[in-house]
């Protein structure tokens, strides 16, 4: 009886988990399905879930109209560059905060986080003007730097949390064995925190990939990433939902595939230290 109840509960929980998972995934599924419909089917009421004439026409039109590879390359450079630059800066910063804390460490961490509380539009004009003055408007360099700054508090916070889980005695032992500060961080600390660093990289890459405020406002032609690619298919006068869905699917496909293959690492990193 107890076993039956237990099996019933397991099925119930599994069903609930699947339902929640499907609910969360549904907008993406709907976008992908719409991308294979004609424009007329995309707005049909009632809509059909699978019973429609599947077509690749929208992908053909999008491919013909836009240079997808250029947008994709810009996204890779901007998201990858900003994440890696952020990691290079954040690893020593998080080490200092985790293993050499001062009275003000907590305040500094909170202050860093507080920069995320400022609405981005509040600093749009100053940053826009600075970019004009430096001649870096519509450049990947500006976006790499700005997105790195935006995500740096999250990177530092995440790494700080992971580093705190590592016993300080191990680092002390390394120092006693004559390891320099650089060696201590590179050869002792970093290998132990690889799951945490990997999940931090993945999460921040996703955040930078999806960032749509700065990437839309500071780019035109040369540095426009996939967010600008999607925006170019939105129309207030005309029903181009199927083409917009095709563009969106093409934009999210790389990050979905990356997330799919690295989900084990991502989950492992995000739950690192959660269960002692």
């Amino acid at each position, binding site marked *: 009886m107890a076993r039956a109840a237990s099996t019933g509960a397991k099925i119930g929980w599994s069903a609930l988990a699947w339902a929640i998972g499907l609910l969360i995934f549904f907008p993406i599924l709907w976008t992908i399905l719409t991308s294979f419909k*004609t*424009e*007329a089917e995309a*707005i*049909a*009421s009632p809509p059909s879930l699978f019973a429609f004439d599947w077509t690749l026409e929208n992908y053909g039109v999008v491919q013909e*109209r836009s240079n997808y590879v250029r947008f994709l390359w810009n996204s890779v*450079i*901007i998201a*990858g*560059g*900003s994440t*890696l*630059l952020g*990691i*290079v800066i954040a*690893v020593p910063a998080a080490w200092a905060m985790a293993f050499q804390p001062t009275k003000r460490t907590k305040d500094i961490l909170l202050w860093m986080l507080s920069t995320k509380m400022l609405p981005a539009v509040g600093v*749009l*004009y100053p940053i*826009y*003007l600075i970019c*004009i003055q430096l*001649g*870096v*408007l*519509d*450049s*990947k*360099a*500006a*976006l*790499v*730097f700005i997105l790195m700054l935006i995500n740096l508090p999250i990177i530092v916070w995440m790494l700080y949390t992971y580093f705190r889980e590592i016993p300080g005695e191990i680092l002390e032992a390394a120092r006693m064995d004559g390891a320099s500060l650089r060696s201590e961080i*590179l*050869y002792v600390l*970093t*290998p132990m925190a*690889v799951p945490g660093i990997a999940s931090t990289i993945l999460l921040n890459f996703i955040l930078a990939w999806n960032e749509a405020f700065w990437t*839309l*406002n500071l780019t*035109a*032609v*040369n*540095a*426009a990433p996939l967010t*600008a690619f999607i*925006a*170019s*298919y*939105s*129309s*207030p*006068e*005309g*029903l*181009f939902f199927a083409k917009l869905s095709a563009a969106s699917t093409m934009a999210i496909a790389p990050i979905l595939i990356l997330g799919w293959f690295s989900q084990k690492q991502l989950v492992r990193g995000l739950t690192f230290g959660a269960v002692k």
Partner: protein
Amino acid sequence: MTIRTALCAASTLAICAAGSAFADGHQTTVTIATVNNGDMIRMQGLTDAFTEQHPDIALEWVTLEENVLRQRVTQDIATQGGQFDVLTIGMYETPIWAEQGWLVALDDMGEDYDADDILPAMREGLSYDGTLYAAPFYGESSMVMYRTDLFEEAGIDMPMEPTWQQVADAARQLTDRDAEQYGICLRGKAGWGENMAFITTVGNAFGARWFDEDWNAQADSPEWSEAINFYNDLLTDAGPPGAATNGFNENLALFQQGRCAMWIDATVAASFVTNPDDSEVADSVGFALAPDAGNGKRSNWLWAWALAVPSGSDATEEAKTFISWATSKDYIELVAENEGWANVPPGARTSLYETAEYQDVPFAEMTLNSINAANPSEPTVDPVPYVGVQYVAIPEWQGMGTAAGQEFSAMLAGQQTPEEALQKVQDLFNEEMEAAGYR
């Protein structure tokens, strides 16, 4: 791979990204900021003809959603960012930006260009102080699109110049909620370019105006009360459910699916609703002028998407060369050759409407008549201190128009009465005008 190698690779990639980006530099191409609509997409597809004629000019396109484009272009032009050489702007922005000195005058486009051929209403709306600052790519007004089959079945005649009362009577008669058929679809979604564009034209027909000659708000006038109550009652009785959130695209979808007996909106919609690939009712659509209320003004607006050169551009001459090509008679013929006469950009040139082939297009005459019936300099029955048919051509209108649109949208959703909405708009407009120094 060791950790050190990984970190070195990370740094190198980041530095390379930065380096390659710094090396991008400024190109001597003409960068065109534009919106994603049918006519603009068509133009992008035909630019090979331009680059063949002008091999020294390369074109780069930045296509954005209308509101994003407006914000991006305003930001760039106000800060002299110089990111764009050709801007796609509307009738609202042109005189305001020209007054600020942000646009290059387009009064020297050459003899072949034939600037006198531009429709007078368009030319006037895109000029400041008598000088043309933006060349119309296509123009539009608004009109009634109706289902000829439903009208025939019900034995109702739709006049070519209907009154609001005739439209309302027909809408109520043709509403069958059980069959999900609604008498009329109108804009309800909040926004200065959405419901406020439509509501302003309803007010124009009913003799209302947003401001008197001294910029005192007039939203509490009996004319506005009559217009807003009429609009609210009509959509409540004969409109689709959720009308408060319907804009152009939502109503287009409803009409194409055969859910609306009438739709009053932009003339550019005619090519969509008569396209059998997208519309279930393509073969049974009729057109009529926007309604009036017996006060000498019709509820039709006037709008143009036009091409302009920002004063910060360093490729002014090349930009003008492109604009003169894209807005020329030759371009219209090029589109006709490739896509057919029904797909040429309408509403910009007089000569188009004199072309025999174009006269056969079912909505051509009604589009021209609708454009000619709109007068942006005298949009209302009583005099006003502003120009603009469906908007007030002052910089503050975007913000205050959208705020007012939210009040009317809330009214349609049943959250407040027409009188409450109008009182809020009255107070808002007076406050804004005072703060901005108009009164």
